[in-house]
Every structure is written in C-alpha cells, then in structure tokens.
C-alpha cells in the first residue's frame, strides 16, 4: 500500500471515540485488528462465514469486505464491547452455560449477530427467528444446536441487555 493513501477515520468503537488509520478501501477488519480488537477474525474473506461480524450502527456486517471509509463517523461494536468492567454480558454467560462452542473461533461473530437479534426483538424467540438472525454463520465445530439454545434461553429470560446497558 502506498503510504500516501493513509488516512484517518473517526468513529466510535465500543463506546469510545477512536481514530482508525488506513487507506479508504482497507478492509475494516484490518484496521480493527490493528487497533487490538482481535475478536474480529477473518476466515473466508468474502462475507460468507460470519467470523468477522461487527455491528455497524447496530446492524451486523462483514468487516472483511467493509471498506474502512464506511466507518467514518459511525458506531462500531465488536465482541470486546459486550462486557463491561470485566463482567461478561448475559449472552456471553449463556454461551458458557449452554456450552455453545468448541474451538471458539466463530464465537465472537455469533455473539454479535445474536446480540443484534436480541436488541431488535422482544420476548422469547422461536427457532425460525433465531435461524434467521444467525444466518450466514458457518461453524465447523458443530455447535449450532447449543448456539441456538443460548440465544433462545437468553431471549426467554430477556435479561440479555449488554453489560453496559443494564444499569
């Protein structure tokens, strides 16, 4: 990359004003990881697998094909932003209770889509709604049932606000 292409982009990442640097079309995942946000993970690099899912203004998107300039002035959330003061969010805790992972590489992506689904709905979610919300996340460890259970349990309890939003 030509150094003259480097620019600064201001955005709010996990609640904090942040300046990310890179070229306009640097994939957002590259800048976020350079910022130390290693929950954003690249697997397929073509927007299919879901491991790089972040929330852009609250909506799940694939950071691997998201150009960096698209973050300018926007709000970004990653799995690092789910916990607060060292306390895991309810959805994260439910993932542990439901044993919703094996290798855990896909987990941050599932958490982000799961949280967005919970944030955008009320009451207990049925299987169809959960499938819809977790669509496009490929987990090769075979935890689909447990992941769905975690989201279902959380939706039934409906205490799954993010740690930061609880008080």
């Amino acid at each position, binding site marked *: 990359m030509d150094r003259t292409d480097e620019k600064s982009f201001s955005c709010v990442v996990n609640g904090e004003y942040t300046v990310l640097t890179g070229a306009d*079309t640097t*994939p957002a995942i590259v800048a976020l990881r350079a910022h130390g946000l290693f929950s954003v993970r690249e697997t397929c690099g073509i*927007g299919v697998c879901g491991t790089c899912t972040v929330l852009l203004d609250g909506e799940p998107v694939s950071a691997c*094909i998201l150009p960096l300039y698209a973050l300018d002035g926007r709000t970004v959330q990653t799995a690092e932003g789910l916990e607060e003061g060292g306390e895991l969010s309810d959805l994260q805790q439910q993932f542990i209770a439901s044993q919703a992972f094996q290798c855990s590489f896909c987990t941050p992506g599932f958490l982000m889509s799961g949280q967005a689904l919970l944030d955008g709905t009320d009451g207990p979610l049925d299987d169809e709604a959960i499938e819809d919300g977790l669509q*496009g996340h490929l987990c090769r460890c075979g935890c689909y049932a447990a992941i769905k259970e975690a989201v279902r349990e959380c939706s039934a309890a409906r205490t799954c606000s993010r740690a930061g939003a609880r008080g």
Partner: protein
Amino acid sequence: MQVLRPQTTADTLRLLADGGEDTKIIAGGTALMLMMRNGLVMPEQLVSLDRLSELDRVTVEPDAVRLGALVSLRSIERSAELATVLPTLSAAVGLVANHRIRQRATIGGCVSEADYASDPPAVLTTLGCEVHVVGIGTQRWIPLSEFLVDYYQTVLQPGELVTEVRIPRPSPTARTTYLKYISRSAEDRPCVGVAAHVDLDSSGRCTDVRVAVAGATATPFTVVAATEACRGAKPDKTAWDEVAAAYSAAISPIGDARGSAAYRKHVTGELVRRALQTASTGTENGAFRL
C-alpha cells in the same frame, strides 16, 4: 487509489465525467470489495454513493414503486409496505446471500453489477422493472431486460449513474412467485431460479404470463414467444408443460460449480413448470428456497 464521497447526484456525475474509465462507482461495496481484494479489478479511483441520501428513498406511488439506487436489500426485505405491494420481490430479496451482505448491498448495485448468479434481476424482469440512468445533461429510463446485456455488462456508459429503479405495481389479479433452487449451502447463489407472473381474466383464462430464469445465463432468460402463446389458454398443466418444454429447449445455461449446463437445462424445465403451477394455484405470492 482514492475514494471520493460527493453529497449530491450532480457532484457525483461531475466526478465520474472527470475521472474517466478507470473510475468506478461504489455503493455498499459487497461486490467491488470482493473483486478488489481478489485483484480482479484495480480502479484508480472510486466514487462512493454513501453520502447521497437523496438516493436512499422508497416511494410507493399509485401505479409503481420507485426504489432509490442506494436502498439496501435489507431495507427492502424489512419494509412492511413493500411486503404488501411487491411480496415476491420482498421475499426473493430476503433469500439473497446473508443478512450482513443484504445490509450493505443496494438495489442500484444489484442491477449495475449485472451478476448472472443473482436472484433479484429475474424477479424484477417479470415485474417489468425499469432503470433510471443519468449522465450530465442526460437521463433515460431503460427496461431492465435491455439494461442488462451480458455477464457483468450493462448498457451504462462511462460517466453514467443508476439513480433509481421503477417497478410497476402488479395487476391486482396477478400472482407472482420465485423459486430459488440451490445446490450447495443454504446461503448460496441460485443454481437455477425461476420467477413467474400469471394474470388471469374474469373467465379464468391467461392474459399475461411472464417467466424469467435466474442464475443460469448471462442475463435473466426469457422465451417471450412461449409465454405469449399462453394468452387465452387455461392455466393448467398442459399450458405449463408447453412453456416448461420451450424454456428447457431454448436455454443454453452456463456450467459452473453450482451445476453443469446439462443439469441446469433439465432443472430449468422442471422449475418453470413448478413456478407457473405455484403462481396459478397458490394462495400466497412469495419466494421459496428449494
């Protein structure tokens, strides 16, 4: 390489005119970012539409729906009004890729990329969609069927921009459907998709039958002579078998990772029959994954 982010359509057209052939337009970036990351295109300059809020509008008029080029597939899918007015388009858009892609992908980008392996263009073709193309001092409406010319090719000239698409409201008596056959994962592109539109007169005879095939040819595939021949016919198996046979005979499908050409040719006939059957007997308009 730099990205310019104009705030008006007029400024966008000026930048496109100044930029020449190595300037590309980027909206959601779901197609272009993939191509750039894989070294398939290396534009010198991009003009982003992300600040053109004037193009992010849905307008439901008495006789048509107008979708600004920047309207995302996700917002089409989520609109309760569009689910009522254009139920099959709304449902078919919901079958595209995954929701992260649909959140970024735009309707203008969908038609302008002219990807053959895409669901919406076939549905839009059967609905009589027109594309609004503007340049400096020029503007024209082009039927989507003429706008798309080949694999990833449209009639767009350098310096021109798609600002919106217009979809006539289907006749109140028309039934529409889209069948998406996938041969690999649930979020895959169509191996073959078939969009059908069937309208009947008060005596139950066909007045307006339209069928377009997605994913198998360079652009949505139609055999207008076969569907025109249905006019006045009873909407029954005999009529649909004839249309299906005509489509299967006439199509020269691509062979790729989603299916061989011979396989797609066979599937086309079967799906055309089923789509027409569904549209003429079903109680709900919609899109279905097979």
